[in-house]
């Protein structure tokens, strides 16, 4: 904030002292007003983010159940060791990582491809309508999408099975079959979030300077080299931002699978957020679930850091 104010001051003439309100109150400078205005936001952040996170970190070292009248008992790293030895937690993490890789990977590839299609069709009639329709899934709440698809997938009256049967296929129990449930949920996630990656793709393409594109065209640069040397260079930051956001979202997926399969059949769609939810709000094991929540949070932060590191590393390499 200081930096921004200083830049503004410099832009306004530089050498003047801190601006004051017209009232001429000497102590109420622009900087002080800015600090004052930021207080509610900081308070909100501290009360609703910092304190709960610190509380959660602390609770992770205690054995504490809401259904047990005994006070929390300090157990050191016991909760973390117990999680490390819990095959169910490892399974949930594995399922979640697989889901993140597949969903983000497919959504990014599809989103980028479709973004190119829409980018090159500015004058196509009906483009706006097509884009609006394409973005519709993204604005649905996951609960609504999950409910729709649960009905669509229904083996007795679902549309999907109706179409399969019309085409001569057998009835398929998409959500009840141990081999299909994961893929069925993945498909819904891709349907919902590919439009977001199209939007990100269009934003990335929009950030490429027209002059450089024209220069590439004049130089008759092949398409793949234009993508690699012109478009990627300018668009990668926006695209990576989209990937980071989708990775974090996918990692914490909860509502879709919980509504569609409750993590089943068996544990085939038991993602880490569902495991965490069960430990915290079904079993009320607050110590263990806090430890798991911290691990989950650190994993999400690690994902973000890896992406940012890759970006930063590439930039450093270019500079050298």
């Amino acid at each position, binding site marked *: 904030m200081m930096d921004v104010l200083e830049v503004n001051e410099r832009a306004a003439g530089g050498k003047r002292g801190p601006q004051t309100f017209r009232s001429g109150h000497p102590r109420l400078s622009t900087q002080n007003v800015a600090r004052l205005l930021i207080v509610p936001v900081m308070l909100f952040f501290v009360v609703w983010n910092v304190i709960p996170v610190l509380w959660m970190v602390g609770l992770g070292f205690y054995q504490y159940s809401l259904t047990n009248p005994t006070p929390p008992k300090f157990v050191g790293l016991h909760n973390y060791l117990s999680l490390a030895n819990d095959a169910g937690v490892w399974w949930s993490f594995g399922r979640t990582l697989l889901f993140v890789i597949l969903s983000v990977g497919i959504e990014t590839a599809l989103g980028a491809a479709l973004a190119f299609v829409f980018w090159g069709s500015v004058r196509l009639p009906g483009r706006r309508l097509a884009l609006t329709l394409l973005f519709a899934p993204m604005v649905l709440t996951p609960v609504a999408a999950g409910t729709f698809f649960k009905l669509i997938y229904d083996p*007795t009256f679902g549309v999907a099975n109706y179409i399969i049967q019309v085409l001569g296929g057998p009835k398929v129990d998409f959500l009840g*079959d141990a081999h299909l449930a994961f893929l069925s949920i993945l498909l819904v996630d891709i349907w919902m979030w590919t439009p977001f990656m199209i939007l990100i793709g269009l934003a990335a393409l929009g950030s490429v300077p027209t002059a450089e594109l024209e220069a590439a065209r004049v130089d008759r640069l092949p398409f793949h080299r234009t993508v690699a040397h012109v478009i990627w260079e300018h668009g990668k930051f926006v695209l990576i931002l989209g990937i980071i956001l989708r990775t974090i979202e996918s990692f914490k997926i909860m509502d879709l699978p919980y509504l569609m399969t409750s993590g089943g059949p068996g544990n085939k769609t038991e993602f880490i957020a569902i495991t965490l939810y069960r430990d915290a709000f079904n079993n009320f094991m607050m110590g263990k679930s806090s430890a798991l929540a911290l691990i989950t949070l650190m994993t999400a932060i690690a994902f973000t850091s890896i992406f940012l590191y890759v970006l930063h590393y590439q930039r450093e390499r270019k500079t050298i």
Partner: protein
Amino acid sequence: MKRLLKVLSVSLVSLLVVAAFSFAGGSKEAAAMTSQGGRVDLQGKTIHMTILGIGGWIPSRLGVEMAPIFQKYAKEKYGYNAEFSYQDAPFTSLYQKAATSLATHSQEFNIIISDSQWLGALSNAGWILKLNSLIEGNPTLSKTQWWDPIVQESYQSYPDYSNELWGLPQEGDVLVLYVRKDLVDNPTNQKNFKAQYGFDLPSTFEEYSHLTMDKYIDICKFFTRPADGLYGVAIQYSKEYDYMTGSLYPFIWSSGGQIWDYKTNAVWGVLNTDSNAKALETDVSLLKYAPPGDVDYGIGQVLDAFTQGKVATAWQWAAEGSGMITPQLEGKVLVVPLPGFMVNGKFMQVSSLGGQPWVLNKFNDPAHMQVAKDFMAWWYLPQTQMEFVKQGGNSVVKDVLDSPGFDNIHPWLRAYKYELTTEHSRDFWHVPQYAQMLALQQEYFTGYASGAYHDAKSVLDYIAAQQQKILYDAGISKIPPPTNIANIVAH
């Protein structure tokens, strides 16, 4: 800035003053409610009560729908006005809703319709009122006799079979079999069935109450006609809450098995037996005769399949009777006990016990607690119970179940009464760790039902070892889990 600080300071001081006065006023009001013969005097007051119950569960809702009768009763007898509101949540999330509120010592919900297996968790946490002295001191409650000892054991006691009472039965419930009478009475079906299986297609309550599982499976097989959109059975295999567990346990108990030893709290060696593995296999084998997608069926889906005419028989709770027997199905449904097994030459037939107790929030202020206690006493008056039954609820009061014509008030009451006995129904563990134990077995039972695991015995081994660990870690059982627990996996 100074002005702002001044305004803030004045506001803060005013708030403190108002709060102090309110507290003093509240104390004065509390003091005014002096006890009169052990009662809090509520003459002329209006008390607003909130009941938390199960969403979409008819008997649960009746507790509030009948509240106007209590309102009139309380006005006449005690001189206060009681207003009731109802909050609900589905079975799957009701405990969370109750527990998170109670954990903050809130009196948001004055009376809660709990599930029977929660008694341990709720009482252990110190959230609900122990009811022994209320029951002993109240003439209605102390004189009320239950239909069977299983009522107290399942809806009131914790620890199991102790005399520490934490709940009062709001409604009783058992898992029963709904049969399409029009289909089993059909002469063509009768003739074809006899020709195919060599015995008469059962069509009366008496015939079904001695039906063995193998014969029942033949019935399911006979009515499975996918080309006509008809299947033999709808049964719950869903992973949600206790859906599959509730339907599986009758297979285990009726074939002579146990789920644990409540005296020693042993699960290992009790649940994972060959007999129980066979019971699990038999339960899952019924999927062949169920509509596609039954592997995800819960209470609602079974109800839909039956009322839409997709199945000839359905395993469903007696409490769902008024939902299962729609106006279109009136006179076409026979409600009977679940099929049993021959064990060592003896016919065994043990169903799962459902039903819910009332529990009272321990953090109720004296006025709300008094109304809650009055409400409990009113609930067990004979006229209240009879009205409850007429509206579709399942009473557990002996006088009501013994009253002439009880069996015929609703089509499911005969089967309900037959099964609500120590011989014919059982509840599962009430320990505070029930949610953990339930979630674990639901995951693996449904995994087996959906084909994720193929060996029933290994599934039971895994569940038994892990449940033993849960009980041992919680200090409930002195029996440790098997030493090779890390190597016990379901496959």
